[in-house]
């Protein structure tokens, strides 16, 4: 258990800078190093997900929801929103740190790294 194949994932400091900005945080250099190491360890561990090949479909169709779906509940939408959200850095800059569905993001909302 708990072993992944391959070299450890190394996270660049520039990546930490990008993530902290997106997350509405800022870190001093010493902290950046700590979070860089932590993130690298966790991602190396989580890489086992990439190494497996589950045959199940991506959508989570939990049985408890099926009854709700029949009753016209918005649960599916909610789960989708819960799953597919991200923070828009431009909205943060506007002083409104909002959660928005990924699909609704405009090109201009995307951080420059993503656009490139």
């Amino acid at each position, binding site marked *: *258990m*708990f072993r992944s194949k391959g070299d450890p994932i190394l996270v660049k400091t520039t*990546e*930490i800078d990008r*993530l*902290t900005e*997106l*997350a*509405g*945080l*800022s*870190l001093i250099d010493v902290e950046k190093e700590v*979070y860089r190491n*932590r*993130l690298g*360890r*966790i*991602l190396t*561990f*989580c890489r*086992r*997900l*990439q190494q*497996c090949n*589950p*045959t*199940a*479909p*991506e*959508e*989570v*169709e*939990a*049985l*408890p*929801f099926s*009854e*709700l779906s029949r*009753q016209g*509940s*918005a*649960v599916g939408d*909610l*789960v989708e929103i*819960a*799953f597919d*959200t*991200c*923070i828009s850095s431009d909205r*943060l*800059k506007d*002083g*409104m*740190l*909002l*959660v928005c569905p*990924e699909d609704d993001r405009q090109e201009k909302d*995307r951080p420059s*790294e*993503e656009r490139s």
Partner: protein
Amino acid sequence: MTLWRLSADRSKDLFEKGQITSERLISSCVERIAKTEKRIGSFLSLTLEQASEKAKLSDRRRHDGGRLSPIDGIPIALKDNIMTKGVRTTCASRMLAGYIPPFDATVVERLERAGAIIIGKTNLDEFAMGATTENSAFKLSRNPWNDEYSPGGSSGGSASAVAAGQVPFSLGSDTGGSVRLPAAFCGLTGLKPTYGRISRYGLIAYASSLDQIGIIARNARDCALLFDAVAGHDPRDSTSLPCPMVSTYEKLKLNETVCQGLRIGIPKEYFDDNLDHELLGSIEKARTIFRELGAVEVPLSLPLVDLAIETYYVISTAEASSNLARFDGLRYGYRSTDRASRVRQIVRTRNYGFGHEVKTRIILGTFVLSADHRDSFYLQARKVRQAIRQEFATAFAKVDLILTPPSPVVQARLGTGSIDPIMRYRKDVFVCPANLAFLPAIVFPIGINSLGLPLGLQLIGSDCTEPLLLAIADEFQRTSGIVDLLAGET
């Protein structure tokens, strides 16, 4: 009679016979809190004056023959991430240090309507992120069985309060085992219901597709009492299940045999060589008891459980990074006084307001949702989650429930947590699959180890089988006599 020692079930019986009053019961619990709280650190806030007033009203109702419910007049504690109107609700975070909610969570409304008496809000890992309660921004909670050990987490305060006799039962929340781990570490019965069975309206969100309010008590009957009071459909939570509710508690009171012919799945992946040998020994004894009660064991394989931790941490952090975006200082709680610019104020608010573990998870969540990595981490985790759910569904075609240890780690000594996050996250490996698969699960004590610390067992059921899980735990507790454990009393 020392009333704080009474289980909720016993208190209820004595109320009915007119042998005790709610006022006396509350006073006894208050005395117990005064004696133990400094050492244990269960509570972040207490509402003793209101509790005393409500106890008087409860006694009057009982005297007039207008008792509201079986839990009328019984004290309860709530994890401090459950909204209580007019009572500070902090999530153990500096971000919400002074936050007073303007509304009650649905579970709080239902408890008030049932006449239960809330006597305080309990400590937790900040925003329920952790497994030892050491991530609280305000205080350290200790395991009443041994001060040097953690009560588990993230609902550590809820568990230590019950184990120390400060309250007979409490509510916690379980996103990846946060009710069941503390219950196991503190020798208690902990129920994580099916996702949607108890309303999440008013529960401060950590990971919305995994969060579920759960119950911590001294025995299965007390769990059933509380479950009957708070479970059921809530139109204000659109993930709430419209399952029909039956009186679980009344069913347990019939002392029926439920284990005869029961098919118990034993998944080999949960019983590897690294499992603590004392825990393994106690589990063997528990399995013998179940077999003697007529249950049949079925060997199982759940290979994807090996990926549960990664799947859980990718999905939960993705959802957390989104849910915690609302804490910007503009709407809730703490706000930085740095007004150089709005962005700077928000960033400084979040920097000061969140602790290290919360920041780590927000950054990880932001990473796995970012365009370059979304497919390889986040979407892959969703696929694995669905595969785990299917794996359980296949297993439940062959068995009625699945028996597992609650954790590969029997207990956690305070201050000795590894700096390696993976080693810390490892505690959740046997409990988080039930959250990923939306399934109900129960943990209850099965023995005490050589250090004098409790050992627990987990049973996982199929959707909406809480009554069955509680009935099995009740039958085990009646048969084994391992029930109503209070720290320092064995």
